[in-house]
């Protein structure tokens, strides 16, 4: 289908698109290009498409809209671009434009589900996680992926906070809905207001998130500007704690894109890991050059098969680089994608860092009981 509507590009976007020198260096880091070898899936290919749309050489077609969806917004191209282009911002803006001119994508339905059920999976019932206190200084926010897809991991995270005697409470949370803005739609203001009200009722002064994406939304999105709480990712919150557990196993860490490149949080998880795992090794691609697991930017929702293949590639790369027995991360989406990707014969164990800590405490208690 070809529509004759032309996109409007303001000066800032014209500049951003023209700035790409087509050097193609983004090929080296794009997780989707790595999989497909098709230039249209790479940042440089998408920017060329938009350049032609901008110059009126190419109509804004449904295929262009589809091409824009094939991006995990991992930002690895951004940090490696010699010309200073931020392709994921350009792609996100293009997704909004494409929706505006009538090319709705499958996330429209997700938006409706989120609005109706308050979570991205359309679940009517939410597990009761307990931990309801009238008042507490800390509030823990789980986010959809953890609460509905990685329940065991969340359970362990809660147990860790209990072991560490953190005074925290939880609320009837609904989806922060920030991700909708990455895929062409708007944040759900009603949900944001509901979250703010529920959170403020607790009188907490610090909001702790386990999900790096929720962290970014609460911290930076204008719809949450009246939140009035300090927002911390759980790794920031835990970095100064003393942990009385240790592991001799070889441990490595995967930087989630939303926590690392998007939020600049690289050191805190490592500070925690170094306290408990002296045998820690970095993957070759790490910190701001860590390869994406393939889950972000709506990519897992839109292209589930490709997404899990990317996770498989990243996981194999980590195993090959490090020979680690334990892979840690702290993002429910990365965790979920890696666990789905892991092959039976791969011996590596994959945990969220907080989950792994709780597990170590569990083993210690067990050891003490046996000794007694």
């Amino acid at each position, binding site marked *: 289908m070809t529509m004759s509507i032309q996109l409007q590009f303001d000066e800032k976007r014209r500049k951003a698109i023209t700035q790409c020198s*087509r050097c193609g260096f983004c090929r080296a880091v794009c997780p989707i290009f790595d999989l497909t070898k098709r230039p249209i899936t790479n940042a440089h*290919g998408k920017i060329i498409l938009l350049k032609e749309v901008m110059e009126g050489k190419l109509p804004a077609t449904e295929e262009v809209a589809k091409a824009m969806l094939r991006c995990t917004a991992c930002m690895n191209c951004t940090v490696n671009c010699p010309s200073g282009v931020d392709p994921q911002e350009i792609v996100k803006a293009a997704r909004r434009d494409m929706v505006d001119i009538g090319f709705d994508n499958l996330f429209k339905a997700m938006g409706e589900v989120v609005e109706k059920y308050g979570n991205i999976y359309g679940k009517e019932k939410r597990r009761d996680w307990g931990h309801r206190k009238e008042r507490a200084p800390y509030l823990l926010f789980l986010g959809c992926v953890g609460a509905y897809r990685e329940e065991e991991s969340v359970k362990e995270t809660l147990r860790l906070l209990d072991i560490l005697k953190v005074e925290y409470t939880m609320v009837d949370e609904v989806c922060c809905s920030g991700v909708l803005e990455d895929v062409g739609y708007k944040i759900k203001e009603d949900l944001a207001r509901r979250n703010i009200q529920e959170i403020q009722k607790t009188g907490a002064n610090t909001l702790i998130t386990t999900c790096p994406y929720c962290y970014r939304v609460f911290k930076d999105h204008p719809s949450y500007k009246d939140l009035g709480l300090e927002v911390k990712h759980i790794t920031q919150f835990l970095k100064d704690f003393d942990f009385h557990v240790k592991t001799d196993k070889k441990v490595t860490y995967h930087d989630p894109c939303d926590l690392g490149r998007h939020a600049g949080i690289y050191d805190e998880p490592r500070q925690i890991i170094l306290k408990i795992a002296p045998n820690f090794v970095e993957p070759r691609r790490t910190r701001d050059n860590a390869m994406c697991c393939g889950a972000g930017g709506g990519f897992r929702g839109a292209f589930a098969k490709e997404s899990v293949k990317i996770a498989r590639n990243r996981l194999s790369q980590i195993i090959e680089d490090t020979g680690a027995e334990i892979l840690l991360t702290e993002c429910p989406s990365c965790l979920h994608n890696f666990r789905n990707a892991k092959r039976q014969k791969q011996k590596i164990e994959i945990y969220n860092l907080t989950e792994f800590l709780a597990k170590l405490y569990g083993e210690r208690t067990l050891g003490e009981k046996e000794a007694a």
Partner: protein
Amino acid sequence: MIKKLIEIVGQDNFTDQLEELVPYSYDASMNVHRPDAAVWPETAEQILAIVKFANEYKIPVIPRGAGTSLSGGVVPIRGGVIIDLSKMNRILEVSIENRYARVEAGVVCDDLNRELAKHGFVFPPDPASSTVSTIGGNVATNAGGIKGAKYGTTRDYVLGLQVVLPTGELMRTGSYTMKCVSGYDLAKLFVGAEGTLGVITEVTLKINPLPRHAMTAVATYARLEDAGKAIFQTMTSGVIPSVMEIMDKVTLQSIRENTDIALPDAEAMILTEADGFTWEEVEAQMEVVLGILKNNHPIEVKTARDEKDRLNLWKARKSAYATLARVSNSFVLDDVTVPISRIPELLVGIQGISQKYGIVVATFGHAGDGNLHPQILYDEYDPDQVERTEKVEEEIFKLAISLKGTLSGEHGIGLSKAGYMTLEHDPVEMDLMRRVKKALDPNNIMNPGKRALDD
């Protein structure tokens, strides 16, 4: 055509969808033209079948690696089928005992070097695009890089090739040996041929032991002539540094104004490196180089031997391209090369041309082998600037030739420089080149329209 191509490579490795073809209409130059289709073959046999078919129906085929070319070399100016070699990316053999590596054409340069590094070896040519450039592309453009003066270019490492010939045969040529004069050196004929003579599917490369130590120095000069003297005195001193880079005033100014890198107000900066098997060897070389740098009235000279200091000294040079790419909407990056002693004349001449046309040209590059990169900055949406930029480019080519230089040291001719071939090559040579092309590719299907071979 569509049916036949799908039959050969399979539905998943074929496209003729407009949007997928758009990125294949470009490289990193300003040339644009749509192909009719693109394929991602996975074996040499598939490529053989494609080329046979293309030759029968006289359809242009354009082999493509990472598409980082700066000359329009992979832009399908007459349409046709893009053969993207990215999926042929297996390292077939690393033979340390015989000092060679055999790879499929789509292997990425840095991926090969990561594998070789495990054995303490390296494939030395290091184009700036080595994180993405493919070995096949490196061979087809005879890619060079920063270490050309000491370690040469891709040509010096190609031992053998497997090539699909335009007439539809699969040929192995060259050897697995360090020496070979058995017959014509056909392998080298395909090196730098920019895909006009056949599709390179496999490459056997000579590999080198990795140097264990390196020491870096930077010197800045208030007078270009002094920097020029320092360069050719070094290159004739008996020591061949592994790196000998120069950046001109405009480049330095742009870096100073657009980054937080502190640089003196100088006419030129030289960055040099000596490498070797032992520290003693490196220090002995560096002593000679430093003596020369200091004797030629520098503003300052700095040295580094640990990794952190080294990276610091490299910072300005590494940021040159990026900084210049950010300050302008568009640019042309050329690669004229002159005999080493003519570098100061080339730099001064380029500045004169730049001023004459009111177009900013920043020049940096590999002084040790005379290969410079004038980066011409302009706005592609301003027709007047486009016209002036073309004139600047033409005058720079003429200047380089007048200094006994060449149009291209490492990027190739492609489309951008095709019109200037006769500046450098006389009618006799042009005629022989065209006859070679015709002999190998009678139907002119291989990357047609390039390097003034079929005008």
